């Protein structure tokens, strides 16, 4: 099948990544040699049954977990060479994470939640930028609401605004619609894809939903800690 010959830039390069975790029953191999390249601006779905290693892979990409073996390059950086705090700073500058359970800070308003990563990055206009992003996700009138005063869909939109406010090159989403009903989930997904394309960001999305995976440019299937297939969608 003919593909337009565009030169792409690699933002993620994993080479033979292994992850072994200790447990009471002894060491457990979670990832068993994952090799994966992802290009800048691509949207990639990672699918697989529970326990296949999807979330662990995402955590390694976010710098939240260290690979036991193998090379991890994200955004041009060798994650194995960075300390914990440098990883945090790299995350703050270049990676936005959207969680299944939103993980908003319950004592902060929508605006304050979105402003938080900008404040961590030392931005002087954090609130202004946060307000713009909340308007972008349709919550311009709910900026002063606390998470408990927002619906699940609204909370996830705040989380989306928070992930995108620092303008990351990489968006990592872990089952972003897992806690939402179908209609609300659809709205969130539309927003997520819309914003990703608009900003030419890379999206790595973990999902169980095959239809949602099909909307991504590429689908990586995992089973028992290994990549078993890597499918690319036909260009429209």
């Amino acid at each position, binding site marked *: 099948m003919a*593909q*337009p*010959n*565009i*030169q*792409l*830039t*690699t*933002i993620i*390069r994993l080479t033979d990544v292994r992850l072994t975790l200790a447990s009471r029953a002894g060491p457990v191999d979670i990832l068993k040699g994952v090799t994966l*390249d*992802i*290009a*800048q601006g691509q949207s990639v779905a990672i699918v697989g049954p529970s326990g296949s290693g999807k*979330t662990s892979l*995402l*955590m390694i990409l*976010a710098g*939240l*977990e260290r690979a036991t073996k193998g090379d991890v*390059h994200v*955004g*041009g*950086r060798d994650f194995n060479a960075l300390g*914990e*705090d*440098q990883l*945090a*700073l*790299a*995350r*703050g*500058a270049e990676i936005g*994470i959207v*969680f299944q*359970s939103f*993980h*908003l*800070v*319950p*004592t*902060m308003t929508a605006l*304050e939640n979105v402003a*938080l*990563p900008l*404040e*961590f*990055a*030392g931005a002087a206009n954090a609130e202004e930028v946060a307000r713009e992003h909340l308007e972008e996700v349709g919550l311009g009138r709910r900026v002063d609401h606390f998470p408990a005063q927002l619906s699940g869909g609204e909370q996830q939109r705040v989380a989306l605004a*928070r992930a995108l406010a*620092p303008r990351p090159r990489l968006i990592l989403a*872990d089952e972003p619609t897992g806690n939402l009903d179908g209609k609300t989930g659809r709205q969130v997904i539309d927003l997520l894809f819309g914003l990703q394309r608009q900003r030419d960001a890379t999206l790595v999305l973990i999902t169980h939903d095959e239809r949602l995976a099909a909307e991504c440019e590429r689908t990586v299937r995992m089973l028992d800690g290994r990549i078993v297939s890597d499918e690319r969608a036909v260009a429209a």
Partner: protein
Amino acid sequence: MNAPDRMLPVPPPPARPRISLHRLVLIAMRELRAGLNGFYVFIACIALGVAVITTVGALSDALHTGFERQGQTILGGDVTFARMHQRASEAERRWLAAQGRFSETATMRAMARRLDGEEQALIEIKAVDAAYPLAGALPVEEGLAFDAAVSGSPGAAVDPILLERLGLKLGDKMRIGDAMVTVTAKIGDEPDAIADRLTYGPRVFLSLETLQATGLIQPGTLVRWRYALNLPEEKGADPAALLRIRQRAKAELPEAGFSVADRRDPSPQLSKTLERLRQFLTFLGLTALLVGGVGVASAVSTFIERRRNVIATMKSLGAPSRLVFSIFLIEVMAIALIGVLIGLAIGLSAPWLLTLLYGDALPIKAALSFSPRSILTGAAYGFFVALLFTLWPLGRAELIRPSVLFRDEVAPEAIWPKPRIIFATVLVACALLSFAVLMAESQRIALYFCGGLVLVFAIFAGLGALVTRVARRAPRFRLPELRLAIANLGAPGGLTQSVVLSLGAGLSLLVAVALTDNSLVSELRSRLPQTSPNYFVLDIPKADYAGLEELVRKEVPGATVVDAPMLRGRLVSLKGLNVELMRVPPEAQWVLNGDRGLTFADKVPEGSVLVKGEWWSETYEGEPLVSFESELARHLGVDIGDQVTVNVLGRNLTARIANLREVKWESLNLNFVMVFSPNALRAAPYTMLATVALPKGIGLNKEAQVARAVGKAYPMVTVIRVKDALDAFNRVFTKVMVAVRAAGSITLLSGALVLAGALATAQRRRILEAVILKVLGATRRRILVSHLIEYVMLAALAALFAVALGTLASWLAVSQVMRIPFTFSTWAVVQALLVATVLVAVFGLLGTWAVLRARPVPYLRAE
């Protein structure tokens, strides 16, 4: 295939963003919107400790300011010059008159007798001139106005208690020395009473002429002459003018030997005592704070555990560990600030409240004012302790991994924080220690105290860990209740550590205070009468001594009379150094304050042991020699061969230290710091001092009869009952001990707060456990009994160790520092055990009540 063919260029390493403190505080305050739930014990612990320290400081400030404001009245003038024995010479009077208006008073102890000789009482005479009082006024309750009362033909204005003791009324006559005086007025509070020291008998005001008429003033009589001076044109309020007059006195009357005081500090001794009490009570407050620190640490641990997800979220959003640590440190310090502010508010309003309730009991009228020192001390201790106990648990926040957001991770039970947190904790501990030591008058005692505290904390922390470990490894008991109780003692996140530490440390202090108090009281009350004399007899003219001794022996065969020549004098210099410029340890300061009894002897006095050097021969006639008390000599830094100068009878006498003696002060025999060779003082006019010890088992009537007989035959001598003198001391001592006990009890209250906090934290886990046990068929009785066994074991362990440590601390303080015999009190120990058991049982069973009432279904659903 469009596989990526080019890697992103390597970006520069991520830069650490600069975040302003203001922004950090904003984020922390937002995070803190969840409220203070879980922090009430934290706040209460800090507030309580700060309140004690601030109360002590503010009360001391109030008394100090009261002193300064009323200095002139308390002192009876702007400046006073006082000395024993010697009335001011004409030249000295001229000098005084040239400085301003002055008033002359003479104070001494004597006996007042009914004319029929049936009753006699020890009195404190104050003979005054027409100018008295220069400041304030002397209120008369009944009778003639003060001036008229003392100036007429021998008249006396007296404390009403004297009339009660002698069975006299206004207008009656009594005998003082050789004079017959009429009681012309009953007086109220004497304005300058403090300046005239602790008094044993009721005050009797006479005119100086009447005093002369009594014949009591003989060469060597123990009379204190005091000259109160008012500077002209309000210069008395000017500190520079006060300083100038003191300097002038030193230069122009170099050998007068006056003790000089001015209105800025009318009673340096009382000021010093107050300062010492302030520091001691501050230490007790610090102990309460440190015990409360356990509650602070446990509250912060729980807080961090509850905020695990928020901390992880922050890290996933790009916050480095230090940033997260800073945000939570700001939060915790803001909460500490609430505690500190509450503590300061309570502390600063305490003097007002105490003055309102107990104003009469204070030695002077307290003036409400606060010094920055008191406020800063309270706040600094509060923040230091809060910081000390929060850094460690906060350090664990740094170790929370953001991956908890993705998967349930069981936090390891005990994680050590990063080395820099451990280093910071040690640094804060050192800063706190240095602050405590620098603020203390005696750095040595402060160091002992802090060292003791560290040791007590280490022992109880170790005990807590040991109990937990032993409980985990204990064999399985057949009795289910006992098995449950032991399992709870060893459970992770259980009560054992914090309860053993807080309750144990609090109880240790209480036991130490109780046992020290007990030893002092039994030393003062029960021990003394057996080993000490019954009477001191003062001012015995040399010629009368033999007759007096014979009289006593005739009245009570078997009575022991011990005598010594007695003069009073002031230490002027040691090794040629002016004692006013010397810095000496607090335990030796008293020797340099005011005048001391001086004596001479040709043999080592009874009750003394020669420890260094040799005693002079009975016929020694060389340069004046002196024997010095060995321990004081060590504190003052003098040794054999050094020169000692005392001012006695208005002239300086220099002697060389020939030997050192060990003295048993507690025997209350005739003990002197300095004993001179006879040739040094033999020629001076002196009187004799004697102690009279009556055989054991003699009745009170016989005891009084001896005193009456002596009084009748020798109207010039003063007889002081040792027991009365001790009672006067006991009254002051009891008041001080009430303050010490109150401050000590606060520590236990802190311990109780920590206990309540620990129980509240464990409550949910306990309810769940009870619910599961109920589901498995356990009855309420079984759960109750298992809790009871657990609490009793905890209380008993904490109390037993507290008794051991408290006893050790008290033994060290009593036998090594105070040098009196240690008396163990079973009752004090039983009290400690009872308090511990009751505290743990009450708080614990309150919690158990809630546990037993919990219905299983909601908890099981929630899980």
